[in-house]
């Protein structure tokens, strides 16, 4: 262990190890970095959250701006190099324009990419003033067309001619934040309830564990459906958002409460906790100074592993039309558009949000696994 870690970590870490001044968190980070897949997943997760944070800046158009002229417009893609008819080369990002074609069989009007038409893409394009993350006033987007009237559908358009890329970026914000908020709320209940049960034990512990077992034995989807259906339809978007978070964490806390209780239970009889008690330390001091620091890493790992479940649950609920409702944009509501087979046949790009879901869930799981292994090197 010593040799491999010496070779893979930097000189600073090696120095810290030699002098033994590295904290538990430092050790954990060093072990985590050896897990390449987990490290790569960490960067993917970070990238997704950066997108969520900077949604307004990254999204080229307003996610609710519709255009009847471009319903189900196919993805334009982003191009960088083109050859003119005369053989000369053009560099710089551009997208193709559209032309209309009549399908001779169905007599339906469809859009096809017009290779001839090139619309140059401009970085840091000026736009209508907006508030980044609702705080910072800005009037520039990461990229846009030089002529804002031209169509920009890099990932295609939906039924109302809205830009899928912009909607995806805004949906990322909602879907990821609902995962975080749900886990935070679960963690809050889980730590308080599980902590009490684990530290004091006795009848309270048994009662809590029976409740947890009861909740976990209920089939989750019908329960969520029932709760979500009970939500008044006239609630505002924000109210629905919080209601959904609450519903998700109503079940989510049980898993975290179990983890927290288990750690408390095993630490309670640990010699160093007895030592603190024999030092005359108060319960509060024992919990905050001696017990909690010993399992924060486990809690972080457990919480990370709980986020994908939340995201999936939200997506599933919204997909079924019982979670978030339009006009809120989330991955689940976006996938709702891809529900029927005819739409899928004409506009398969509407499934892109599904790819995002798969990627982030996998990344979160690998990242959480890596964290757990790093936090508990003996548990492998």
């Amino acid at each position, binding site marked *: 262990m010593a040799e491999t870690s010496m070779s893979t970590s930097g000189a600073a870490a090696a120095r810290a190890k030699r002098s*033994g001044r590295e904290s538990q968190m430092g050790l954990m980070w060093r072990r985590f970095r050896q897990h390449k897949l987990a490290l790569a997943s960490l960067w993917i997760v970070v990238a997704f959250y950066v997108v969520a944070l900077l949604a307004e800046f990254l999204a080229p158009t307003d996610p609710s701006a519709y255009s009847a002229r471009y319903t189900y417009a196919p993805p334009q893609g982003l191009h960088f190099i083109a050859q003119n008819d005369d053989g000369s080369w053009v560099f710089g990002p551009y997208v193709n324009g559209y032309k209309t074609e009549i399908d001779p069989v169905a007599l339906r009007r469809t859009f096809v990419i017009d290779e001839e038409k090139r619309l140059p893409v401009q970085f840091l394009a000026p736009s209508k003033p907006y508030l980044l993350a609702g705080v910072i006033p800005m009037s520039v987007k990461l990229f846009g067309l030089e002529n804002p009237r031209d169509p920009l559908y890099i990932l295609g358009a939906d039924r109302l001619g809205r830009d899928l890329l912009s909607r995806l970026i805004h949906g990322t914000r909602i879907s990821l934040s609902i995962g975080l908020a749900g886990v935070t709320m679960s963690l809050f209940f889980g730590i308080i309830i599980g902590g009490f049960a684990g530290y004091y034990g006795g009848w309270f512990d048994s009662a809590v564990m029976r409740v947890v077992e009861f909740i976990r034995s209920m089939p989750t989807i019908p329960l969520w459906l029932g709760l979500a259906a009970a939500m008044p339809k006239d609630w505002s978007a924000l109210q629905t958002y919080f209601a959904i978070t609450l519903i998700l964490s109503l079940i989510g806390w049980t898993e975290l409460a179990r983890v927290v209780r288990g750690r408390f239970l095993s630490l309670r009889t640990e010699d160093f906790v007895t*030592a603190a008690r024999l*030092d005359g330390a108060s319960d509060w001091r024992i919990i905050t100074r001696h017990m909690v620091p010993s399992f924060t890493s486990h809690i972080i790992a457990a919480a990370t592993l709980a986020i994908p479940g939340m995201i999936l649950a939200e997506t599933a609920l919204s997909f079924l039309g019982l979670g978030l409702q339009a006009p809120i944009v989330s991955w689940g509501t976006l996938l709702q558009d891809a529900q029927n087979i005819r739409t899928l046949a004409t506009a398969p790009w509407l499934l892109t949000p599904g790819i995002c879901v798969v990627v982030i869930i996998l990344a979160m799981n690998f990242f959480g696994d890596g964290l757990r292994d790093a936090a508990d090197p003996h548990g492998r």
Partner: protein
Amino acid sequence: MSTLLRVEHVSKHYTLSGGLLGAERRLDALSDINLSVEAGETLAIVGESGCGKTTLGRCIIQAQPVSDGRVTYHPLGGGDVELTALNKRQLKPWRQDIRMIFQDPMSSLNPNMRVFDIVAEPLRIHKIAKGKALEDKVISTLAKVGIPAEAVGRYPHAFSGGQRQRIGIARALVLDPKLVIADEAVSALDVSIQAQVLNLLEDLKREFGLTYIFISHDLGVVNYIADRVVVMYLGHVVENAPTEMLFERPRHPYSEMLLEALPIADPLRRKGRSTELRGEIPYLGNRPKGCPFHTRCKYAEDRCRAEKPVLRPVAGTAQEAACHFAETLTLKGAYEDNPPQVASAALAGAGGLPGRAGQ
């Protein structure tokens, strides 16, 4: 010598729930323990695993409540403090005087705290020192156990088992205690490190005028460090004797059996000696009637199976034993085939392996 601590009629039992429908069962871990600890002595508590020696230690230091009986502490300044009658807050000041050293140096130090903070924690809890004074006290205490000042910023994982145990000792001593309970303090260590730590404990005892309760299963270690030995069996004290006397002529068959099990390195002398402990230690919840030891005792008679002997002074000695035949039985001590002078000669050597067991 004055009495520092008195344990009177202490019992500890656990209730085992029998599941949903089963009847509750009582498990007696300690029954009617009486002993006293004199200031300045080292009292060893020995016995096989499960005899209740650790439970007794934990009941004395109030890590566990006793079921019955009293533990009374007599501070050197005079007075009686009945520890078993105090609540958590009232107990706190006395926690400075009675400290504990743990068995496993791997789990007794918080892995998330630097060594400095581990040793400083008791001082902070009792608000004894702050700032520079706190720092000086911690560093000087660690220096006494041989941990250099430049190592105090490290975490426990950077230390060896012996070093960690010394840090644990520093944590116990930083409050200037009067009585230290060492629960198997050296049994998790290598033999050479054991000797080092035992010698350190001896030195510290002299320097600070400490009193030790030394809980161990290793009679070799006990012979080296203890002034007096309490032998426990199935939650009972079966013999209480000065170390020399116990090793010379035990008064309880169980003590004899433990002494017989001491390893002897000389194969010629070892010949014909049974070193096995006869029989199994009975399950605590299913304690035999009469003398608790009669199931394994080769001297047992009908009286032993019917009548439970009490711990009583053995006529003509300073020993106490709980055996009906303590006076009449001639039990074999450890010195018969292992002369004591050899033992002390070996220990006189630098550092010396702990105990006479190793010669």
